[in-house]
């Protein structure tokens, strides 16, 4: 195949993709002349080039389609039928192009069927009363263009817009001229593939559309781009990977030789390599929109087939990611959008009955977050049918009824990712064939991504996918187990814990299962050497080692290794096909010292540990989320200032520290200590700072939003798990009251009192407190710190408190049937803010009358007004604790009176 034809194929395929998308847009917005102009121009270009290259079938088809579009451009009413017809034509064009690519020549065949239909429509369009011509925008066509002459004009396309055809020729000419060039210019960077060409506006639909018809000139001055063969880029990437490896090796050597004269030039080499790596990675980056391009058409066709009205919204199409990753997520994305359209959205009739807009919406969004890209696919459909999933789980014996009982809805929903799971009652041509979400999950897992699902009955489903930006070079932690080194991808490592006998981090066993107590949670552990069967003859040292705390999706577990070295940027090399069956590894890499090591696949380890882990962890999570006060609360018991035992909820304490007394400094009459690179104020319980005279001073560190405060204590007594029952509430500032802990009267400290002592503005963002009878209160705040703090505070005030970490979660709890007397909600929350939450509550009859109190640091009149409109009964500034108590009291009184 000659270069000219190949170039034509690439370009035409691209143009047709654009036409696909634009046509769907056009159908929705038939009066948008700019879109039509763009489509018309693209098809015209294709036709012109086909004529030039001697491809009669393509030319005839493009011509017929163009004729019909010409009618639309002249003001004939646009029909869905017509657009469908043109889309069919586009499909046929693609088919022929496919054959052309394979065979190098246009295949035999007859397109009379399509052409005659298109012609019939053109004639019908003529007959239809012509609407006001939309001609103002279109590139002023040749003088002969007038509605009455449409038929004749269509037969002589050259007349329609001569400049168009000229442009087609101009471009073709340019390529003819350039085509032989690569051979000559082969030695530079990109061999055979580089062909300079002004990027056509065709490839940038958005721009072309906004610029309307006058973009012919733009074709020339558009951004300069270079078309490079993908293989060339891949090769370049491999070379850069090698360079990175060599650089690492050199660095390793120089590290061993102090004062090497290579140091400086090597540093320079290192920087250049890093930049080069960045640059090459960038060439591999593509906007995610490329993977979405086909979706509007798919959704449109689905809508027609299923008789649903579907709106597809796409946000963040410009978000870039590695093309390797892009290729891998294309199919899962398409599948999920199909799923949303088919199962997610209800039929028009049902939607109307449910009081929703008839048109269903599928929303796709993408954004960057850390080294990840997050893609969300959401619909406003019926949500997942939990009962049906349960039934299916039982049918397929994936879990027992008893197990199901214990699961949260979210856990049950996760089963849709189980192999062979499809809940569609009827198998449609669209989806529901049983190969579904499990394939999606497998694909996502393969690239080290995670998938999460959130569904609200009647309101829709959101699937969130989090995937790494690139797979080629990742940062990894190098660990050692049984004498072998392994790389653990940094992205899944949360923290490192050193386990030692007698330290607070001690490996314990429940039967044969090793676990670690980590900040009041049990972390399941797995010994890497056992998992990999490399334990050898030596007995496992049960008590010491390093624990790599790893997170995969919602699972958290610890991998026990013997040694932890540094982190290194490693180049991921695919594993040999002979090793690919080992799920514990995701690849191999070459370290700086030249040795090959295996890359641990956290997903593989997670599944090896088994599903038990995930259930366990999820339950703990769910429990802590609900914050049900009947649950046991871990209290940290200590002494400070006086003999009486004091306690705070352990979950509030970020860390227990001991600092050397001589490290405590004074400034502005306050005690400070340098802590993790910042100054941390110290506060004492009694107000009078009694520091130890020598040795080290124990501190309780409290942190929130990057700030830390140290509470000076004399001695830490114990950690006690007990139901917190504050029996005597106190009026003393700083005390919530007294409770019996382990048979001893203990003062429960109100940390809320001490935080502002350290930072006066601590509560500018978060805070609260209350007073009431035993009434049920739902507290919504996104900060775990304030949620945890509030439970004892409100308990002290006599409320039965349930907490929620987000508006959506709170709504779920409300819909769960629990009756609440009052709801207190934070305003500044991610996803659903307090206003939206209150509005959502008001919209539901069941809790429209439940009083809601807003808590916010925003106290300007506008915010207060907004809150009133949203349906909040009262609005309390976050730092106004007395105000909140008063507000709660008032609400209680109102209710009491009303009752």
């Amino acid at each position, binding site marked *: 195949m000659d270069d000219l034809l190949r170039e034509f194929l690439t370009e035409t395929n691209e143009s047709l993709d654009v036409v696909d998308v634009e046509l769907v847009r056009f159908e929705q917005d038939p009066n948008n002349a700019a879109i039509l102009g763009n489509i018309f121009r693209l098809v015209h270009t294709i036709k012109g080039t086909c004529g030039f290259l001697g491809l009669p079938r393509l030319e005839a088809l493009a011509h017929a389609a163009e004729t019909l579009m010409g009618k639309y451009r002249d003001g004939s009413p646009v029909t869905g039928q017509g657009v469908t017809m043109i889309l069919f034509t586009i499909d046929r064009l693609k088919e022929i192009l496919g054959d052309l690519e394979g065979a190098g020549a246009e295949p035999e065949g007859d397109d009379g069927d399509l052409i005659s239909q298109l012609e019939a429509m053109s004639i019908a369009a003529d007959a239809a009363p012509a609407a006001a011509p939309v001609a103002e925008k279109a590139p002023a066509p040749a003088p002969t263009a007038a509605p009455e002459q449409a038929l004749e004009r269509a037969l002589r396309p050259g007349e329609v817009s001569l400049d168009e055809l000229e442009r087609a020729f101009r471009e073709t000419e340019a390529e003819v001229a350039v085509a032989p060039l690569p051979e000559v210019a082969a030695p530079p960077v990109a061999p055979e593939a580089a062909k300079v060409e002004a990027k056509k506006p065709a490839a940038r639909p958005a721009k072309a559309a906004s610029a309307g018809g006058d973009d012919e000139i733009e074709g020339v001055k558009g951004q300069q781009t270079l078309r490079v063969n993908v293989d060339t880029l891949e090769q370049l990437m491999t070379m850069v990977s090698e360079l990175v490896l060599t650089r690492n090796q050199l660095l390793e050597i120089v590290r061993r030789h102090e004062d090497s004269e290579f140091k400086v030039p090597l540093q320079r080499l290192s920087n250049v390599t890093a930049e080069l790596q960045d640059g090459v990675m960038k060439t591999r980056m593509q906007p995610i929109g490329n993977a979405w391009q086909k979706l509007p058409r798919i959704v449109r066709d689905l809508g027609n087939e299923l008789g649903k009205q579907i709106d597809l919204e796409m946000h963040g199409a410009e978000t870039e990611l590695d093309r390797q990753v892009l290729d891998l997520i294309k199919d899962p994305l398409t599948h999920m959008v199909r799923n949303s359209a088919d199962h997610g959205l209800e039929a028009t009739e049902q939607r109307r009955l449910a009081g929703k807009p008839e048109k269903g919406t599928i929303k796709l969004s993408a954004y960057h977050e850390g080294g990840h890209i997050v893609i969300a696919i959401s619909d406003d459909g019926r949500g997942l049918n939990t009962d049906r999933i349960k039934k299916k789980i039982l049918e397929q014996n994936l879990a027992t009824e008893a197990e199901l009982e214990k699961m949260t809805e979210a856990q049950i929903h996760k089963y849709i990712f189980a192999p062979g799971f499809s809940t569609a009652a009827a198998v449609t041509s669209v989806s529901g064939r049983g190969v579904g979400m499990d394939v999606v999950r497998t694909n996502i897992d393969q690239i080290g991504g995670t998938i999460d699902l959130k569904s609200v009955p009647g309101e829709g489903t959101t699937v969130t996918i989090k995937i790494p930006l690139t797979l080629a070079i990742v940062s990894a932690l190098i660990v050692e187990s049984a004498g072998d080194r392994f790389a653990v991808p940094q992205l899944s490592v949360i923290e490192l814990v050193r386990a030692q006998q007698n330290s607070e981090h001690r490996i314990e066993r429940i039967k044969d299962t090793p676990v670690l107590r980590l900040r009041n949670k049990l972390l399941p552990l797995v010994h890497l050497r056992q998992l990999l069967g*490399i334990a050898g003859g030596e007995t496992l040292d049960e008590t010491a080692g390093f624990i790599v705390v790893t997170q995969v999706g919602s699972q958290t577990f610890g991998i026990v290794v013997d040694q932890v070295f540094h982190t290194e940027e490693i180049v991921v090399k695919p594993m040999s096909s002979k090793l690919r069956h080992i799920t514990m590894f995701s690849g191999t890499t070459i370290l700086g010292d030249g040795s090959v090591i295996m890359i641990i696949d956290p997903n593989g380890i997670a599944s090896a540990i088994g599903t038990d882990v995930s259930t366990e962890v999820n339950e703990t999570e769910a429990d802590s989320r609900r914050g049900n006060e009947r649950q046991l609360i871990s209290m940290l018991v200590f002494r400070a200032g006086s003999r009486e035992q004091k306690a705070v909820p352990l979950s509030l304490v970020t860390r227990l520290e001991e600092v050397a007394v001589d490290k405590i400094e004074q400034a502005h009459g306050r005690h400070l200590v340098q802590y993790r690179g910042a100054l941390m104020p110290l506060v004492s319980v009694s107000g009078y700072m009694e520091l130890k005279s020598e040795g080290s001073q124990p501190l309780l560190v409290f942190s929130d939003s990057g700030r830390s405060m140290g509470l000076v204590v004399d001695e830490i007594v114990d950690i006690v798990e007990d139901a917190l029952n504050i029996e005597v509430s106190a009026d003393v500032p700083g005390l919530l009251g007294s409770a019996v802990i382990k048979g001893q009267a203990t003062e429960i400290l109100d940390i809320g009192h001490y935080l502002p002592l350290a930072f006066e503005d601590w509560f500018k963002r978060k805070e609260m407190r209350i007073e009431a009878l035993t009434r049920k209160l739902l507290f919504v705040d996104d900060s775990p710190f304030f949620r945890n703090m509030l439970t004892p505070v409100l308990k002290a005030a006599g409320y039965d408190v349930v907490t929620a970490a987000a508006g959506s979660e709170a709504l779920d709890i409300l819909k769960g049937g629990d009756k609440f007397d009052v709801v207190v909600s934070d305003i500044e929350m991610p996803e659903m803010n307090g206003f939206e939450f209150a509005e959502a509550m008001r919209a539901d009859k069941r809790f429209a009358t439940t009083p809601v109190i807003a808590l916010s640091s925003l106290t300007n009149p506008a915010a207060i007004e907004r809150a009133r409109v949203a349906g909040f009964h009262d609005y309390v500034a976050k730092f106004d604790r007395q105000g909140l108590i008063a507000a709660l009291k008032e609400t209680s009184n109102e209710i009491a009176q009303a009752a």
Partner: protein
Amino acid sequence: MQTTSDDVTEYVTVLIGGQLFGLPISRVQDVFMPDRLTRVPLSHPDIAGVLNLRGRIVTAIDMRIRLGIAREKDAKPAMAVGIESRGESYGLLIDSVGEVLKLSPDSREQNPINLDSRWARVSAGVHRLEGQLMVILDVDSVLAMGGEQLAA
């Protein structure tokens, strides 16, 4: 197979457990000393490990284990023959490398029917040489074997 104008095939000869084997020279990329072999936990026993050969990652296959030849107590694989297959690099660990022989098909015979099945699967025939026999190693079968056994 890899024939020259006179229908002569060139073989790289290697010794594995005292037996002479021949690999078609066109399939042999290089011969190297395996250095710093990293074992791969959970892999098939005949996978000796992976190693770095000039920036490429090579999967080493222990031919003794593959052929069911007992390992001598202190014998470390002294040499490896580098082979490419479907874009991947492999190294066959052998005892030693001999000379390159040009052999005409005349001296080539079918596998004896009573040959150990493990050997028969990787052997493409036998050449009668003076004083000894040379088993022709079918490289693709050697590499395919791992897959079969895994699947089984």
